[in-house]
């Protein structure tokens, strides 16, 4: 699922110059890591909802933790999909 998520990130966020091999599953997605910003977080949330039917509620969940890396995001989606 990690690779699938990476491709989703690349497609949803128009990261044309980046391939899935360029994204480290454990590296930070935002700020210093991949360099994504708050608009990307919203866009990614929408893309995840469309693809996995998983809604990440910013008021109930610890979104900073969930969105911290591809691994944490994949773990969260897996847990919600069961």
């Amino acid at each position: 699922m990690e690779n699938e998520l990476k491709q989703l990130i690349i497609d949803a966020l128009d990261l044309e110059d980046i391939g899935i091999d360029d994204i480290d599953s454990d590296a930070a997605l935002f700020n210093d890591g991949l360099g994504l910003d708050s608009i990307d977080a919203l866009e990614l949330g929408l893309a995840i909802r469309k693809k996995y039917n998983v809604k990440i509620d910013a008021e109930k969940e610890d979104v900073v933790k969930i969105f911290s890396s591809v691994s944490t995001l994949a773990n969260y989606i897996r847990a919600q999909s069961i």
Partner: protein
Amino acid sequence: MQSMIKGSDFIVRNWGASAPGLSSVDDWKNWYATQRISPDSKPPLLPNSISKMLQRRLSLLARLVFHAAGQCLDDGEIMPVVFSSAHGEICKSLEMLKAIQAGEGLSPTAFSLSVHNAIAGLFSIAYSNSREMTVIAPGLEGIAPAFIEALGLLYENGLHEKGLRENNEVLLVFYDEPIADFYPVAPFNLNAPFPCALALKVSLAGDGLPVRLSRSSESRDDGEHPVQLLAFLRFLLGDEQSLTLGNQGRGWRWGKI
């Protein structure tokens, strides 16, 4: 021309324009002579100083704005900017309306980039420009309100600096793209044949092309902003000494002095 300037006179220090396939002054001179534009042309390349992460957010229209403005600015140069566009990113808004109609989730990125000051916001980030920025949607008045806004800024900033200094400059950026067929435009003359951005750096003193702006009461029907933008570009490229643009009895005249 270094002499002191009156009320609605200003100096065009330099200018740049960009459309698909038209970027250099020579390209524009050729367009002026032939009125032709090649249909399969690509959007302009932007300098590497504008990060790829930011460039991915730029529409064709935003790229043209950046490219035209970039031709007027030295590296690191910042100044107040007046943006002027009849329709802004209206094509993005239409795409979102279609998504809503189809019952799809709305893209937050598309929404944030569809508002009238979206390109101005991206521009301020890309150029680290924290000066005053205004975005005008001028309607029937065409390109004139942006000049008036720029003159206001020049005089206001000139007051603080106690005089008309050469470094008191404002960047004016006009841009529009053809709007989608979905929108009925007739009987209004408000669609240009191609997307285009025109940037002018203006001041009250210094070298450049001195221009006098005045009201005109001639009864005219010159079209709205997207059409007037190209008329002003032809005025810059050609030998005509004056340009009058107006609609419904309200108009403005630009004269080379």
